[in-house]
């Protein structure tokens, strides 16, 4: 079974029956389809597997004669492993799947398979199987097949993406505030299958000597291994750092403080002595593309959810002593978030660019430009990802498109945040 890496094996049998999660799938029963003159059948079988959730399992009833096996398709997209249910041995299932592949090889794989994929097979081959063999088939996405790549690119060129969106449409955004009770402010943002949590904690600290009249803000992002197994251990660190750096650049403004989403002077309590340190922590829980925009939105929502405790400074002590500060438990000051920009990432695929790309689309990108834009339509930060170079005029065009999109996104986000806060107050 370990030899099946980087294979998609789709199996369709004559008089086959396909069960998905124990439910018999109705539309593919009966009929003999030679693979080469009915390419659409291959396509439809391919689509069945695409519509499955990864936890679904297929139960395949293998018909007694392997000659009847109609098609199996190999491409780079799925990896597959087979393990038997209780009553049958591993070798028979592996052998069966292997024979399916061999039939495909004999019947001319070049008609159906990705020409670039190579076949490495080392399975035990058992030529004739009788009876039913059921097995769990585990498959997972390892890359896109050539067909899917064309499908995504072609769709974007025609302004119709795989999930039915247009190029400049966002997935529905869902905002929930106040999810972390211990923080001063928090929010959870879902964009399609991307889900992030941001929390804001305010702690008393000392201002830095270079800016005695300002507070401090730091942004840290973590990628939870729940989002993807490769973030296990230290695996998520690289992405976390990149996201943190991009968010700092997009939200904290220039060195002098111009364009900052958060007014640092408002965090000062006693000049040069006490200030608020704002810690913004982000956590990526589930990942399906466009994480940066989602984090930007979550931070904006968390900040508008943030209450900073009111502070009473006890009598102005002499200039050397640390003044005594009394933090109120009841009174909170609302944070002004009108200046916090939104981040819009435009992903360039082919000659066009799209917003809110899913991870499938992101795998096809040549480059992506993230622009942070505030209410006034001013650019507060910009970064570019992806190796391919861009013509300067394209970048300027992308900026103007982002500006246009930002107005809609800002309105949508504001209304979502308001709705979330209303919900929170109700409960």
């Amino acid at each position, binding site marked *: 079974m370990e030899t099946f890496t980087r294979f998609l094996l789709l199996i369709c049998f004559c008089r086959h029956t396909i069960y998905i999660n124990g439910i018999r799938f109705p539309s593919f029963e009966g009929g003999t389809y030679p693979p080469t003159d009915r390419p659409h059948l291959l396509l439809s079988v391919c689509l069945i597997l695409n519509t499955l959730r990864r936890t679904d399992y297929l139960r395949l009833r293998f018909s007694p004669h392997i000659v009847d096996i109609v098609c199996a398709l190999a491409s780079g997209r799925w990896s597959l492993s087979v393990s038997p249910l209780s009553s049958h041995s591993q070798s028979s299932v592996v052998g069966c799947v292997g024979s399916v592949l061999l039939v495909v090889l004999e019947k001319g794989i070049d008609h159906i398979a990705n020409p670039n994929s190579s076949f490495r097979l080392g399975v035990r081959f058992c030529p004739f199987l009788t009876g039913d063999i059921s097995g769990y088939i585990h498959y997972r996405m390892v890359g896109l097949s050539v067909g899917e790549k064309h499908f995504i690119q072609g769709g974007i060129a025609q302004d119709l993406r795989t999930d039915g969106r247009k190029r400049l449409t966002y997935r529905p955004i869902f905002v929930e505030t106040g999810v972390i009770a211990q923080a001063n402010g928090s929010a959870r943002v879902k964009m399609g299958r991307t889900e992030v949590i941001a929390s804001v904690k305010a702690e008393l600290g000392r201002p830095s000597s270079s800016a005695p009249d300002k507070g401090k803000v730091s942004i840290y992002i973590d990628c939870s291994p729940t989002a993807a197994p490769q973030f296990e251990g230290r695996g998520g660190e690289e992405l976390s750092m990149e996201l943190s750096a991009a968010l700092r650049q997009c939200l904290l403004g220039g060195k002098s403080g111009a364009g900052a989403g958060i007014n640092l002077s408002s965090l000062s309590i006693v000049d040069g002595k006490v200030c608020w340190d704002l810690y913004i922590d982000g956590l990526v829980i589930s990942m399906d593309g466009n994480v940066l925009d989602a984090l930007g939105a979550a931070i904006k929502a968390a900040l508008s959810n943030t209450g900073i405790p009111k502070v009473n400074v006890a009598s102005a002590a002499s200039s050397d002593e640390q003044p005594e500060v009394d933090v109120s438990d009841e009174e909170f000051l609302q944070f002004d978030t009108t200046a916090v920009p939104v981040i819009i990432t435009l992903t360039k695929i082919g000659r066009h660019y799209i917003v809110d790309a899913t991870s499938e689309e992101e795998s096809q990108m040549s480059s992506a430009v993230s622009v942070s834009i505030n209410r006034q339509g001013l650019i507060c930060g910009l970064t*570019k990802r992806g190796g391919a170079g861009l*013509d300067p005029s394209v970048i300027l065009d992308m900026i103007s498109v982002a500006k246009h999109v930002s107005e809609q996104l800002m309105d949508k986000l504001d209304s979502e945040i308001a709705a979330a806060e209303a919900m929170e107050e109700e409960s």
Partner: protein
Amino acid sequence: MAAKAGASPATYSPSPATYKKNRPPIFTDVDWVRPDGRDFHQCRPAFLRTGAVNAASGSAYAEFGNTKVMVSIFGPRESKKAMVYSDIGRLNCNVSYTTFATPVRGQASDNKDKDISSQLHKSLEGAIMLDTFPKTTVDVFALVLESGGCDLPVVISCASLALADAGIMMYDLVAAVSVSCLGKNLVIDPISEEENYQDGGLMITCLPSRNEVTQLTITGEWSTPKVHEAMELCLDACSKLGKIMRSCLKESASTSQE
């Protein structure tokens, strides 16, 4: 002043009031002179040399005003065994600061190094023909000897020169220039003093002869017309810098032939 005017001072005592951290008023006005006397749109004189490190397969040294940078290239060498197979080459970038690079010793933090390293990687990867050396890795080690503003652009330009010196296939040399926005003015190739008080910064790395931008970063608040202006300014400077880099390469090639 008194100490200076008097005969030789017997003891050294630092004057406590010299460090004023407030923003000097000159930067906000319309008419001010840059600390080093340049025009707003004038770059610092650039000094570029290739072949500074003998042991490396390619290296370069760059000096822009007070910013001094050395880059050495090692490889292409075989990728580590643990890495998965890749049909394009890998680029491994590492930027470090010497402890004496900044006015306060050892100020440049580890985090900043990593950030700059990843920026360097992003800027270079688009210019290198990575598919010409599959399964292998090229190491780019940059050392900032002295930080005098515009460190990242200088590192990037110097690294592309070193890559060319090492004979790594590239689509074009990568030239990088940054501008600072101070009040109403755009200041090209800022020194660290100007960078510290800037309202915004914009950096472009581009392939001058292909007219392609491989990396663009903007910080601070910018209006669209200002971005246009700054980009034009940078691109113009990039193409000039590209010419200087090219002539530097030609020169070193001709001397080595002799």
